[in-house]
């Protein structure tokens, strides 16, 4: 990962010590004192308002389903290419076509010879999982949260792993007998991963 994506310090935050000092809650402070500090709080924002309620870990877990490129967030489970192929035929083929090609919505399968990346030069190039998606973990995250379009959130963990395995197999990234799980999905390096670069535009006269 480019260092640009790591360890940026918030511009207007304070040192961690200072942050600890000002972020305590004022729950037990007399209201009259709080009123007196409102003007100061708005000007400096160095006072906690004590607004917001604690969240139980179980509440967080119910929503925190995101999966990151390093594999954090992948749930325990596994799925096979064969399982995914069957499910694809039931749930996905109407929108994405047989074998990930030819449907009314996004084409999912296809590699370009020598894994070229002609998307800014060849108008006929079509972005697919195999030639454009930089991370396999994104596939799990997206299917898990958003697919199928008419019934998002309806697939179980095993089914999502299976679909990811099948789609990666369609793109010649994993073999037909592959089983994907929380242990090996994040280790897959997608063909286009090295193509992705941070935004180099910085304002000013230059058109980039």
């Amino acid at each position, binding site marked *: 990962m480019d260092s640009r994506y790591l360890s940026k310090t918030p*511009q207007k935050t304070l040192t961690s010590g200072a942050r600890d000092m000002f972020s305590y809650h004022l729950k037990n402070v007399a209201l009259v004192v709080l009123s007196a500090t409102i003007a100061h709080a708005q000007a400096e924002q160095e006072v906690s308002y004590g607004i917001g309620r604690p969240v139980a870990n179980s509440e967080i877990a119910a929503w925190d389903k995101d999966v990151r490129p390093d594999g954090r967030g992948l749930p325990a489970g596994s799925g096979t290419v064969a399982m995914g192929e069957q499910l694809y035929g039931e749930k996905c083929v109407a929108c994405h076509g047989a074998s990930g090609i030819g449907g009314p919505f996004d084409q999912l399968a296809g590699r370009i010879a020598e894994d070229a990346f002609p998307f800014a030069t060849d108008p006929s190039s079509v972005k697919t999982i195999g030639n454009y998606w930089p991370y396999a973990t994104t596939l799990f995250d997206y299917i898990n949260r958003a697919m199928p379009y008419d019934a998002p959130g309806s697939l179980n963990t095993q089914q999502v792993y299976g679909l990811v395995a099948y789609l990666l197999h369609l793109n010649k990234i994993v073999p037909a007998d592959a089983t994907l799980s929380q242990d090996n999905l994040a280790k897959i390096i997608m063909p286009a991963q090295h193509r992705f670069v941070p935004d180099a535009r910085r304002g000013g006269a230059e*058109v980039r």
Partner: protein
Amino acid sequence: MSKKIALPKSSRRKFLAGLTATASLAGSIRSLAEAPAYPTRAPGKSPTELGGKSTHESLARIPAFNIVSLTPLEQLHGTITPSDLHFERHHGGIPNIDPASHELVIHGMVERPLKFNLAELKRLPSVTRTCFIECSGNLNTRAGEKSSPQMLCGLTSQSEWTGVALGTLLREVGVKPGASWFLAEGSDAPLMTRSIPLTKAWEDALIVYAQNGEAIRPEQGYPMRLLLPGWEGNTNIKWLRRLEISDAPFMTREETSKYTDPLKDDTARMFSVVMDARSIITSPTYPMTLEKGWHEIRGLAWSGRGKIKAVEVSSNGGRSWETANLQGPILPKAHTRFNLPWKWDGAAAELRSRAIDETGYVQPTSKQLVGARGTGNQLYHLNSIMSWIVQDNGEVIYKPEYLG
């Protein structure tokens, strides 16, 4: 005319091409009002609980392909988009959310994970600011010459937003050292997610609950949305339910396989979230027909990097430029109205506008933009100068330029 090019099969392409087919929708709406011949000779209507538009007006968005609706830019004045005409883009429909059961959870690299409901957000110090939101895919590159600004680039709108500074909420939860990004998640069917650098959170990000003085419209994220002034529309997560503070981006689908920009050096730019400066003429444009004599060339200019410094207008296809008037107040990261009186002499003319922002960026020509980025599969951040031909019969048409 737009060139005929063999295109890959893609829903996006079909959406862009199909806009032409829906072009006549707004124009076909007719006033249903029967106005009395002498409105001064009888009392008018009594007061009502909720006002409405004049029955003689027929403003409408153009919905297309179940994923967008476009703002009628050429029919609006000033800089505020009426809330019911704000453009829409959603990826799984508009959720119907009861604010009584909606909560915003902030967790991850924080000292105290907290949840906030709408009433609690409204107790916190409020911030109001006016800024644009523009979809980064806001150019119909397949449009023909009979295209209005609404059809070409109606995915930009401006509102006065009110809410809480995200920094205020982050101080409540206490961001841990080492945190640098956060994930924003919506409560819509696809649980829309984007990764945002924390620097933006501290700079000017808001969690907003009001739009133009009332609750946010459902299409715009009711009951609360993330507002990132100057950043591409998709990052302004609507129906916001969760913020997860982290030490790296999450690489969601919308920031990898979508909303990234292929470049000529065989790479793709990601997190290209700031909207470069752009201007559009809103009048005269298709489908207007001009009479000889004085008109006002009007339009909007904006930059995601700050204030508009100047807008220049050409009536001869870019051979010479005049500085337009800017209507104040000129706000940063906001639609700014420009105008320039213009006398049409009856000869064919080509109208253009170009914006210059306070960083010195000059809105590029399509040739410059293609030179910098290539063509091919470009969908996002196509902000080049647009041209309108005033034909010698007075009819105004769009001059399409192939961009990607």
